[in-house]
């Protein structure tokens, strides 16, 4: 079952067809979403009424195009801001975590490591709900005690960022740790031996080496934040990120403007994917 072991043509053929079908399965829904962004109809469904760019460009209701749909545009903005914050916070903490678990020795390390991994097995809904409950508990308590409203602990952008930060950090930590584990720590010693302080050694030698992992993790964080729904839904306030805005419309059975947004997202993600591939394959030292 590897190329060097001969197998019947029939077997190989069937296998290839199976894999082909799999990829058709993978691509179809996305293609369909993209294509229907250009359907000149009020519904994202058959029949095909001819191509149009109205769902991107039209300025008036009912066929309001994406680029004039202020609500959607604003929600894209919200998602973008949330994703930026989440990415930065997660990357910083994940880098610390990677150093903590790969470099330091301390009692209880294994337990803490397992706890670090737990967000992977906490459903996003529950994470969102628990953070919502806890933050309201604190905020309510603060209001009772000091008659002061800790507004950032109420549903809103800050809480959304915190909620996403809670589980995205774990994923970023795994990505960065994997790279740090491969890092030859004698490089850091060499730097110190050549006169660098420990911090300078980390900044000048270790971090540049981690760069591809940091960029990869950053892109993953950004996308995960941008796409997150379950955790966000529980924590959202008056500013709805894109996924929430889209969900609200989807429940109502929206116009193909959603296809337009989706297509835009796919294109943007594709560009990010290319960037990440480019950075990953980059030769060290150039």
């Amino acid at each position: 079952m590897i190329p060097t072991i001969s197998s019947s043509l029939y077997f190989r053929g069937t296998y290839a067809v199976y894999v082909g079908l799999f990829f058709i399965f993978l691509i179809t829904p996305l293609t369909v979403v993209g294509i229907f962004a250009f359907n000149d109809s009020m519904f994202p469904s058959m029949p095909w009424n001819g191509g149009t760019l109205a769902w991107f460009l039209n300025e008036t209701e009912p066929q309001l195009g994406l680029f004039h749909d202020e609500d959607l545009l604003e929600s894209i903005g919200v998602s973008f801001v949330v994703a930026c914050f989440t990415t930065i916070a997660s990357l910083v903490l994940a880098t610390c975590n990677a150093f903590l678990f790969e470099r330091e020795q301390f009692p209880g390390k294994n337990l803490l490591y397992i706890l670090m991994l737990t967000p992977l097995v906490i459903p996003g809904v529950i994470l969102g709900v628990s953070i919502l409950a806890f933050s309201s508990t604190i905020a309510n308590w603060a209001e009772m005690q000091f008659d002061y409203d800790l507004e950032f602990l109420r549903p809103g952008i800050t809480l959304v960022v915190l909620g996403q930060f809670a589980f995205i950090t774990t994923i970023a930590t795994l990505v960065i740790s994997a790279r740090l584990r491969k890092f030859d720590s004698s490089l850091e010693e060499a730097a110190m031996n050549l006169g660098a302080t420990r911090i300078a050694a980390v900044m000048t030698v270790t971090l540049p080496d981690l760069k591809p992992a940091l960029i990869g993790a950053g892109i993953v964080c950004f996308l995960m934040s941008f796409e997150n729904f379950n955790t966000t839904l529980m924590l959202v306030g008056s500013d709805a990120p894109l996924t929430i805005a889209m969900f609200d419309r989807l429940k109502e059975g929206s116009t193909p403007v959603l296809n337009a947004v989706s297509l835009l997202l796919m294109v943007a993600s594709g560009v990010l994917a290319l960037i990440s591939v480019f950075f990953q394959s980059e030769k060290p030292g150039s």
Partner: protein
Amino acid sequence: MPENSNVTFDLECRQVTKSFGDFTAVDQVSFQIPTGSFFSILGPSGCGKTTLLRMLAGFQHPDKGEILIKGKSVLGTPPNRRPVNMVFQHLALFPTMSVTGNIAYGLKRRNVKREEIRTRVADVLKRVDLPDAGDKRIDQLSGGQKQRIAIARCLVLKPDVLLLDEPLGALDLKLREQMKVELKLLQETFGTTFIYITHDQSEALVMSDQVAVMNQGRFEQVGTPQELYYHPETSFVAGFVGDSNRWEGHIDAIEGERIQIKTVEGESFVGRSIVKHQLKKGDSVEVYVRPESVNIENPKNRSDLPNQCRGEVISVLFDGARSQFLIRLPQTEGEISVAMPQTGEHAQLRKGDSINIAWAADQCLCFRRSSGNHDG
């Protein structure tokens, strides 16, 4: 080691000890290294030599003892302030920087001016004979070139002592031979004190002014390569430095320096005792005979060496200059390796031939059996 207050020491260790839990990695090691010498620490893996080196560099802290560089204690000095630099086992060249970046790294940390960095880097590159390598990436260099850059990176900082942690280990045999010579020459031109650790006796013997043989955390013997080879003071040194045949046995009789030994297998040898061992009759001993000190006797012209045996060639191990015969001693079924003389004499010997061998009592070294055995 003789005390000599006239000589200045670049590095001095006093009773340095380091334990990890129950395991004592370095056990009361003391030594002094005169300025400008090439000092090697030779020992099997796990003997504590790397720990010792890392304590010198400052990556580990001794439990007890004192480390002095140019007469000043460096125990409180963190690694980045110590006037020593280190060439790492796998060189640890920074892959994210160019050759120039690597060499300039230490200078930048000292806030040397940009202009000066440039001239000093160019200068050191010239001295290691790679004047045009500055813009290259690390992965564009050959193994030997990397070696030289790693050394240049340290020497450009003009350290008091350069530490080398088996840097030749990763190289293939040919290149290693070549680099040995090159390292020695580099050390001579720069005049910096080198401390070189290795498990490869040939590296240590070829390059060093002084070699310390280390075993189980202790220095067994410190001396010139010749002293170690010809006058090992412990059974470990005898077994570790150079090749040896080894037997166990006990002492039958003592006549001054001459002693009569009976091996476990039943052979009788005449050997020489090392003065400091003070052996008595009946003591258990180990006996070492180097293959190259065994004569193959011409049956017509026997020598009068005290140790004479007759045996059968059971194998010819041809390895160029290091070729040996493996000979079985028929009375006891014991085996002995004998070096093949390079003169071409005896080259006709084949498996199954019987020959006479002999060696001098001086070449047959006896040591009291140590409790911790090893397979020298």
